């Protein structure tokens, strides 16, 4: 019994799950049952993949011990690259990979600068936040490019599927990515290296793990997922605006933290990051349904983030107090 309790207390995503259940119940009651009806769920699930994909990348990178503030800008830069090329007459099969390559390059630059010059990634990616946003506006020429209709296979990402058209295709893409990244982290040797690199760098190095390459790979994956998420939003909206994704980097960090990821690295799960992202969508939507002034959203998000960290620290302390004897 004690062991079981400890196992649950040790799960980093526990706090997020508790908050998710609580808030869902509150909003369901306050909205007179509108919150969980099919129409509203469909709307929420349609938006979730865009935040959640970014949160997955940021969570992975934080577990590896690094930080990415540039994801919001990459979220805009990738589809803008694609959009400008499409408007210029390039086919989708070239424009899309080109946008993804740009996202990967941003991650590569973030990683190399952080690792080679031993700069905190907070600084490197803060710089990149401005650089990538500026690049987005510059290549757009100030106006969103006019993408010819049918230049993008929108249905691949935005079509409604499933029972009662509950999901968009983007939700399936998100599920596939979430599953793959989770399995990579928990079931492969590369995942082991990521957690070791973030958990205790000197040990990872002493055991011969190529920690520099592991970090750079995580930066690139994080950037790639941000670009992918941005492209999904643009397919949904139909045109790439230079301003999309502003503030998303902080939402993603909040999602990771609410989901139990430690800023110091080594602790956290992909599921936790997804739960955090879901919570953010739930609050956003729930406040609207409860007819609360939308300006309260950031207040709620901020309170939740700090509250989750405090609760997490408290749970971890409780868990440590349960001394399961380690020796037989």
């Amino acid at each position, binding site marked *: 019994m004690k062991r079981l309790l400890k196992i649950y207390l040790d799960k980093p995503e526990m706090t997020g799950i508790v908050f998710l259940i609580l808030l869902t119940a509150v909003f369901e009651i306050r909205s007179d049952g509108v919150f969980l009806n099919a129409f509203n769920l469909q709307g929420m699930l349609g938006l979730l993949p865009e935040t959640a994909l970014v949160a997955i990348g940021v969570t992975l990178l934080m577990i590896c011990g690094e930080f990415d503030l540039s994801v919001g800008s990459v979220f805009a830069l990738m589809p803008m690259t694609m959009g400008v090329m499409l408007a210029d007459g390039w086919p989708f099969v070239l424009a899309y990979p080109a946008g993804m390559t740009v996202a990967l390059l941003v991650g590569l630059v973030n990683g190399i600068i952080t690792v080679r010059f031993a700069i905190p990634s907070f600084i490197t990616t803060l710089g990149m936040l401005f650089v990538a946003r500026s690049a987005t506006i510059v290549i757009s020429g100030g106006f969103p490019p006019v993408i010819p209709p049918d230049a993008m296979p929108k249905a691949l990402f935005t079509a409604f599927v499933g029972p009662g058209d509950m999901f968009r295709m983007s939700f399936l893409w998100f599920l596939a990515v979430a599953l793959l990244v989770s399995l990579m982290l928990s079931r492969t040797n590369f995942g082991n*290296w990521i957690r*070791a690199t973030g958990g205790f760098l000197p040990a990872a190095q002493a*055991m011969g*793990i190529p920690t520099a390459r592991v970090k750079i790979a995580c930066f690139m994956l994080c950037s790639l997922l941000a670009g992918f998420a941005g492209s999904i939003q643009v397919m949904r909206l139909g045109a790439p605006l230079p301003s999309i994704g502003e503030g998303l980097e902080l939402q993603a960090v909040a999602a990771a933290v609410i989901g139990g990821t430690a800023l110091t690295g080594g602790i956290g799960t992909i599921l936790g990051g997804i739960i955090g992202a879901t919570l953010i969508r739930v609050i956003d939507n729930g406040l609207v349904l409860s007819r609360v002034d939308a300006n309260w959203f950031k207040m709620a998000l901020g309170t939740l983030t700090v509250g989750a960290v405090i609760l997490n620290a408290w749970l971890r302390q409780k868990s440590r107090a349960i001394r399961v*004897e*380690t020796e037989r």
Partner: protein
Amino acid sequence: MTDPIIQVQGLHKWYSGVHALNGVSLDIQPNQAVGLVGDNGAGKSTLINILSGMQIADEGEIRFEGRPVQFRTPRDAMDAGIETIYQYNSMVPTMSIARNMFIGREPLRASVGGVGILDRKAMREASIAALRDVDLHLRSPDALVGELSGGQRQGVAIARAMHFKSKVMILDEPTNHLAVKETQKVLGFIQSLSELGITAIFISHNIHHVFECCDRIVAMARGEIVLDRPTSETSMDELHEVL
């Protein structure tokens, strides 16, 4: 006498002006337990960091089992059969025992280009066996290393080195900050190594510990070896004098 397993010839290392190693030469016989002592800053860590591939010597030669070697990374040394156990550096507290046992050397069920799917069953079973072999009876290989005591952690590190059939085990101050009982346990481990055919280099600034479990004492000061005797032919007084 058998051939030495490690031969160090005229090793030099400079750190921007500091002459950390000043022409160190040392032969170590297989199965020997060598105690390396000296004050802080004597160059002990620098010497073993070079042997374990963490640092590269500026001058000098190392032979391992008779062959000249140049360890460029910790992995080179590990692959040759030299495992190093540091006071803090060898375990990730936020990971389980089974995962820590195999960091960087995970058994895989399938792989492409060195990355693949963990054989978690093999990892658990090998961990349990390895811990049992060093007489460490932990409840589960899934427990986090961060929940173990300092002595238990060193036990896991030693079990890991054994599992990978290391020929030489270097222990850099493994007993620092350990309780008396735990220290005794680690010293016991070191004593049992020669029966298992493992050569040990044990670094400590506690001379009593070194006398307790080593066959040979090497003392360093200011980057040089100042004393090198079998334990039976020296005394703590003599050691105190040279240090």
